[in-house]
């Protein structure tokens, strides 16, 4: 079980990242603005990064930090492509929420 001493163990970091992941999931499910949904996806990615770094320290293995590096690069590429899609969709119509984009006809 979690020890209640005042030095944060790995479980504290992992639980914090679990809470951050849940908040990000809630944001993706609830918010309607596609930009804010993207920000919530970034929250989830950061939660996973935090747990990777924590487990790298826990397992004494540098490869966890290496994977975080690659996750950051992929996240940057994902944001660039996603924002490009949002810009190209929203330039033609004044839709502000994802509900307005429900129909397939362009």
């Amino acid at each position, binding site marked *: 079980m979690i020890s209640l001493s005042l030095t944060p163990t790995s479980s504290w970091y992992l639980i914090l990242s679990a809470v951050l992941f849940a908040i990000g999931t809630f944001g993706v499910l609830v918010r309607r603005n596609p930009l804010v949904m993207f920000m919530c996806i970034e*929250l989830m990615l950061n939660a996973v990064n935090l747990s990777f770094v924590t487990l790298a320290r826990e397992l*004494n293995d540098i490869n966890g930090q290496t994977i975080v590096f690659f996750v950051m690069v992929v996240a940057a590429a994902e944001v660039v492509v996603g924002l490009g899609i949002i810009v190209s969709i929203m330039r033609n119509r004044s839709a502000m929420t994802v509900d307005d984009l429900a129909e397939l006809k362009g």
Partner: protein
Amino acid sequence: MEFFVFVCAALMILLGAVGVIVRKHPVHAALSLVLTLFGVAVLFVAQDAHFLAAVQVIVYAGAIVVLFLFVIMLLGVDRVENLRTEPLSAQRPLAIITCLGLLAVLVAAIVNGNGVLNERGEGINLPDLQNGSDANTVQLAESIFSRYVVAFEVTSVLLVIAVVGTVLLTRKAKSSAK
């Protein structure tokens, strides 16, 4: 001391994350995101991942959030969103139930799995700033450029593809519109 750092960074992270999902204005949500990302960078430093903390601040809090703000200004979508009305009536309670269930599963896994994992890696060099170089950065560079060098090269190809694809996506069609 470590407890104090953890509590402050955790408060920053949680306040920022809640701010992202409750602020109506997209610009305010983006600025709350900066708070969260910076808190994560502080926790990276607290766990001796110095290089990743620097990359987190530069790439995430710098480039990505600036990109978000730039797109918000470009599209002019900086109007406030009405969070009161909900088009799908059952969605918000279902989302709350789903996220609480997810959180419960994750926390149960963490608490039950505590101590199951044992150290098996070859070790992480703790940062040693006395001789002018960060040992953690050196070790991370050795890992990336020796064992994962192919993945690193593929990453550069991925970035080029993303840049070219975004230019193609956002370019205005000249003749195909007619």
